[in-house]
Every structure is written in structure tokens, then in C-alpha cells.
């Protein structure tokens, strides 16, 4: 069967992949352009990258985005794992329907609506509770809400396939349920946790719309700075910055993909061992 893929299908696949990649490759190419005119090739140069290092606004934004990303991915891995355990291990509890809905909704909710509604909450909270001030804290809180959804779904699918016999054995030998889970199942799902951490990090690093709504004066994340620059047109230092971010995200996704594939392989191996 596998040797009969029509030339038509291959052509469309190639065109599709070309559409996805050519703009990114061209962008990376132009980031090494010595000429300040974005349409003229003036020879190879890394000067735009060195200029980035002297741009205080961009460095501040990058540092803010990285701090937000680390806080968000750590928070959402914790909450998302708890949610995944709840959904997989407790088939019946009050609020299960609510939790399922709240985990799935952020995936299909347009960001602009999530952003507006969260901003309204934060404004009211600041008015009544004098907390949180808009900036780092509100962006982290808002990002965790949607990243948790992605973590839950990744970890949930891994937990569903995890072999529970080891955990049951540990409990038969006298471990409490928490201890048994920590000793047996948790190590098995660590790759899934690591890959969802990385994916949350990239989601947080990329977000423009929600951050723009919930952020306050003085707190501009990297995408916000890029957006305001890009609105003015194509510029060579943004090319360099964009290339750097794309490479960072690419590395994160490749590691996450590798970890997930390894988990999948381990699972298949476990399944084969179990059959024997």
C-alpha cells in the first residue's frame, strides 16, 4: 500500500510544507543581511544581532518574557498535572463536568475574548483587593489559565496509558496512595511533564493578545515590543530578533517532541513486556 502515493499528493504536500517554511527561512536569511534596506542584499553580516545586545528596550522585554515563561510553565505543570490526575483517577466527583469544560474551553476560546474578560477581573480585583497590580503578576496568572489546559491534555493522555500494577504493588506493600504514586507512576510520566513544561514555555513566550490586555504600564513582553515595531514596517533588527526566538522555540519543540516520542517508545516496550 505504502508505495502508491500519487504524484499529485506528493506535490501538494511539498507545496504545503514550502508555504510553511519559505517565509521563515527567508526571514532568517535576511537577518544576516548587511544592508539596512530590507529588500537589497548587501552581503553577510551579524551586525543586527550585535545591535540587539545594545538595545535596552528589547533586552528588558526579553528578560521579562523569560521570567514570565518560567513562572507560567512551572505553575501550569503543577496545576495541569493535578487536573489530569483528578480526571483520570477519580471517575466520579462533584465538579468533574465543570473541570472538563474549563480544561477544554481555553483551547478553542479566541484569545481576544479571554484577554478582555481577564482584564475586567483584574481591574475589579485591584479596585477591591488592591491586588494584583497589572504587569508581571497578571500576565503570569492569565497565561497559567490557558497553559494549564495544554498540560492537562498532554499529561492526561499519558496517565491513561500508564501501567497501574506497580503502583498497586507498592500499595500492597504498605505505601500510602500518595507515596505509591510518587515512587512508581510519577517517574513514568516525567517526560510528559518535561515536554508540557517546554510547550507551556513556548506558548507563554509567544503570546501577544492576552498579554497586551492584562499587562500594565511599563511591563512590555517581547511580543508586545515586536508588535509595536512591526506595525511600523519591516526592519532588520526585528529580523534578527525574530530569528533568535524562532530558533529558541524550535529547540524547545524538538526536545519536547523527542521526549514524547521516547515516552511513547517506553510505553510500547512496557506493553510488550506485559504481554510476555
Amino acid at each position, binding site marked *: *500500500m*505504502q508505495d502508491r*502515493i500519487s504524484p499529485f*499528493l*506528493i506535490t*501538494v*504536500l511539498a507545496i504545503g*510544507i514550502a*508555504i510553511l517554511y*519559505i*517565509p*521563515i527561512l*527567508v*526571514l532568517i536569511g*535576511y537577518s544576516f543581511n548587511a544592508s539596512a534596506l*530590507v*529588500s537589497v542584499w548587501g552581503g553577510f553580516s551579524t551586525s543586527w544581532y550585535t545591535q540587539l545586545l545594545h538595545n535596552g528596550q528589547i533586552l528588558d522585554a526579553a528578560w521579562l518574557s523569560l521570567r514570565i515563561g518560567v513562572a507560567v510553565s512551572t505553575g501550569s505543570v503543577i*496545576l*495541569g498535572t*493535578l487536573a489530569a*490526575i*483528578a480526571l483520570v*483517577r*477519580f471517575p466520579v*466527583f462533584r465538579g468533574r463536568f*465543570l*473541570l472538563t469544560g*474549563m*480544561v*477544554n*474551553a481555553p483551547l*478553542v476560546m*479566541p484569545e*481576544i*475574548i*479571554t484577554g*478582555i*474578560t*481577564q*482584564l*475586567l*477581573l483584574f*481591574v475589579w480585583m485591584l*479596585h477591591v483587593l488592591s491586588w494584583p497590580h497589572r504587569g508581571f503578576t497578571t500576565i503570569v496568572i492569565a497565561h*497559567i*489559565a*490557558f497553559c494549564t489546559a495544554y498540560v*492537562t491534555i498532554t499529561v492526561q493522555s499519558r496517565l491513561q496509558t500508564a501501567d497501574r500494577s506497580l503502583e498497586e504493588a507498592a500499595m500492597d506493600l504498605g505505601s500510602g496512595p*500518595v507515596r505509591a504514586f510518587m515512587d512508581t507512576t510519577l517517574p513514568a510520566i516525567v517526560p510528559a511533564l518535561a515536554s508540557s513544561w517546554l510547550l507551556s514555555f513556548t506558548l507563554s513566550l*509567544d503570546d501577544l*493578545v492576552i498579554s497586551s490586555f492584562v499587562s500594565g504600564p511599563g511591563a512590555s513582553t517581547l*511580543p508586545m515590543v515586536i*508588535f509595536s515595531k*512591526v506595525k511600523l514596517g*519591516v526592519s532588520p533588527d526585528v529580523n534578527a530578533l*525574530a530569528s533568535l526566538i*524562532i530558533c529558541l*522555540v524550535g529547540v524547545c*519543540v*524538538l526536545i519536547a517532541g523527542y521526549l514524547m516520542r521516547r515516552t511513547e517508545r517506553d510505553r510500547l516496550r512496557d506493553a510488550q513486556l506485559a504481554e510476555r
Partner: protein
Amino acid sequence: MSDAAADVIDGRNRGVNGRGKARGEWLKRNGKWFIILPPILYLLVFFLIPFAFALMISFADTAVRVPPFTDILSVSPDRHIHLSLNLGNFQYLFTDEVYGLSYVYSLKTAFFSTVICLLLGYPMAYAIARTSKSTQSVLLLVIILPFWTSFLLRVYALEGIIRETGLLNSALLWLGIIHQPLKIMHTTVAVYLGIIYSYLPFMVLPLFATLEKLDYTLREAAADLGSPPWRIFVDVTLPLSMPGIIAGSMLVFIPAIGEFVIPTLLGGPDNLMIGRVLWDEFFGNRDWPVASAVAIAFLVLLVGPIAVYQHYSTKQLEA
């Protein structure tokens, strides 16, 4: 040791054990709430309750203060609670035609981009599903990589291709196909290109998931019974891949309606999509009650497609 002392110690031990057991029982019965409650509470407070807030503010009036809207619930000096609902914001949506036009325009743009994504994504997913397992995982990674790469940066990268002095125009001019650079930036075509380019992976991935599970023996059976290839496709492959088609279409359609970055950066002043109107209402006019009303009305329009998506994606998970 006297008997009395032994009794005391015994009693104390029993007391400790009894209390310990009671605590163990309590933990066993209620311990799961330590796992369930944190995510539920978090998402409730920071995801669901905000929607209630938007609903509330959509019934408020604009006011010159911080936050810029009136309270809809107020307590008068004689301790009566007053509920003042202002339906004016929703009425306003019908009187000012920019809202109706931008809804319709967003729906139209999202619909046609979804159709084009489907026409391009289906053969791609089909081709990937037909390759060997090891090629599949490489190709999937190739599709997933842009899926995670920043939207903003990819839209920006596209601008580098389609602007007047961009790669596309330079190539076409050099080849002599055109003699005047094409004006693509700030037109409707650019918005379509942007959406298709950004959302294509959202279409390919769910399609691949169904096409991969497709039972190819059914196709062989149809071929053995004399069906021509196009009949096999229409009668067997297409109906069986319906869940993937619907899931993929919704994953493109729903976010495309609310798209803000693409019409702002690539579109012109005519490409007034609802996301842009919302943004301007919030940051430009600072009219929060009207913006909340637009958001709530928008959400109501989305409930249908979201329900369809949820229905088919759970079906696909069960399969």
C-alpha cells in the same frame, strides 16, 4: 509496672491509634480534594468568573472614573439593593452598523480560509498518512514545528514575502511574469494568505489523526468490487474521515473569526474583523461596556461551532 499504669499507657496508646485512624479515614475519604480543588478553583476564578464579569459589565454604563463603568448593583441609603441593567450597549450593537458588518466579514473570511485550508490540508494529511511510520513521524514534526512557532513572527515573516519589494514580487519580476509589482500587502488577499499560512497545521494534524486510523482494507474491497478511484474516495474515504474534517475545520474556523494580529498587520482599513473592532473599542475608545457587549455577543455566536467541535473531538477520542 502496676496494672493501673499499664492501663493508662494502654489507654493512651489506644487513644493515639484511634485518633490516627480517624485522621487516616478522613484523609482517605477527602484527600482527593487536595488534588481536585486547586485546578478547579484556579480555573474558576481566573477563567470562568471573568466571563460573568464581562456579562455584568456589558449591562453597565460608561463612566468617567477608574474602572470606566458604573456599578449595576448598588445599595441605597435605605438598604435597598438596586439592580440597574442597561440594555443600551446591546441595542447599540444593532444601531451602529460597524459591528454587524465586522461580524459578517469575520464569518465570511473565516469560512473561505477554512475551505482553502481544507482543500490544501486534506491531500497533505492524506499523503503523510500513506507514508511509512518513520517518515510519518518526521513529516509530523515538520508540520508541528510552525504550529508552535510564534504567530506574530510568522505573520511578520509572511510580510517579508508578499510586500511590494518582497521575495514573491522580486521573483515574478525577474522571471518576467509580471512587469509591475503586485500589491498584496494591506489587501483582502493578504489577510487570506495570512490565515491560511498560520492555521494550516491546525487543519493537517486532526485530519492526519483520522486518516491514519482509516481501514485501508475497505478501500481494497471497494476496488475489488470495481469502484473507480474517485468513487472509492467519495464513498469510503471521505465519509470515514468526516470527524477529522470537522475537527480540523473548527480548529481553523473558530480562532480565525477572532483573529486580530493578521488583519491588523497584513490587512488594510477595509479588513475590519471583529477582533480588531474589539481591540479598538478597548484601547482606542476605552468604552468597556460596549466592548464587553461585543465580546458577549461574539461568544454567543461561537457557542454553535464550539459545541460541534467538542462533539466530534470527543467522538474521535472514543474511536
